[in-house]
């Protein structure tokens, strides 16, 4: 699983961080940091939930 964020779309709403804090972190500069670009399969459900919640649909999951 590979996590791809379109940073042109990301508005820093931090919904992904609530769904999958092991993978997504919004820091105090308001920017999103992807902590693991290829997270383990055990996190797939959480990452998919994060992608669904994203208000700008900026997260896609490849493979």
């Amino acid at each position, binding site marked *: 699983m590979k996590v791809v964020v379109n940073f042109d*779309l990301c*508005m*820093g*709403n*931090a*919904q992904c*961080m*609530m769904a999958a*804090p092991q993978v997504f972190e*919004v*820091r*105090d500069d*308001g920017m999103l940091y992807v902590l693991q670009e290829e997270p383990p399969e055990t996190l797939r459900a959480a990452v998919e939930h994060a992608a*669904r*919640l994203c*208000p*700008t*649909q900026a997260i*896609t999951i490849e493979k």
Partner: protein
Amino acid sequence: MRTVVIVGASLAGLSAAKALRRQGFDGTITLIGDELHRPYQRPPLSKQFLAGTWDRARLDLPDRGDLGLDAMLGTAAASLDLASREVTLEDGRRVRFDGLVIATGARARKPRWHAGLRGVFTLRTVDDALALRAYIAEGHRNVAIVGAGFIGCETAATLRGSGCDVTLIDFERLPMLRALGESLAGLCRDLHEAHGVRSVFGAGVEALVGRESVEGVRLADARIVEADCVVVGTGVTPNVEWLAGSGLVIDDGVVCDSTCAALGSEGVVVAGDVARWQHPHYGPRRIEHWNNAIAQADAAVTTLLAMPGKGVPYAAVPFFWSDQYDCKLQLIGAPEAGDAARVVEGALGERRFVMLFERDGSASGAFLFNSMHRVAAYTTTVEAGLGRVTEGIAQ
């Protein structure tokens, strides 16, 4: 259950379809929608799309095409017959179902004076946004916005950013007063005024002025605000008319139990803006926010696929955000007038701060201003506060 019909093809409806497949439903899914468009995102309509920084294709909600939907778009549902388990569309077609998801959302409320003139817009659909954009591009750049709720305030910010003259009008004393309370609403007024928005608050609208095209807004005190374009953002009305006589309970939305099952039926669930469900913490409530459309669709589908009476209560904490100028406003929970409010990070008026709301010593909500990195932490705080309140009631 072999056939599920979803009425409403926006975020809640599409989320329900995805949830059905994710939860293993392999029968037929029919998605009915009154708009011709495939499901798209509404939040950018008052922001990136209105500003012109997002193009039309970016609005589409992702659908990898593997949902196997039977989409019937461009025709609204006209009635529901629970005895024969059929939805009838406006063009007379009938669709039979075993399970039904109602996700018909809400539409922009149009005040009685909203009629007849060119240059008067609501902002709910992509067609609304395209029409407004085109009218402004024709050179109508003196805009009055009636209703200083979130849509009105976002529209004001976006159009100021596009160089329009903007007047924000509301019968309340301050913008977003009911949602945010006195001190935060005052801050929002200051934010808009600092960006050159004229504000006319505490003033009801009596009528629009103009012959063919709008030329201004006449207030209840007879003042006239000149404008060649008017945007009306005075709230929404749930789309429930098609359910009249169906036997479902309608009261500002479709009334549901705590599991999102519609009262007075079996195998009918409700999600999104149209659902008035028994929230375990707040009681009967409708939530018109993005996250709720997704999470409630998941919950409603879980209920639909479970045995009757085996659904799980849905207890989401409300969350919404608003982008105005270069500021991010986020509200977690549902604070009410009378809740104690105190700033817990930064200070009011600073570039960044957090305000916590408390009721009976428990957190009832949090307002974050340019503090996105704190969303997860304060969501946990508010969830814990609600949990304590509910335990207290149970005892």
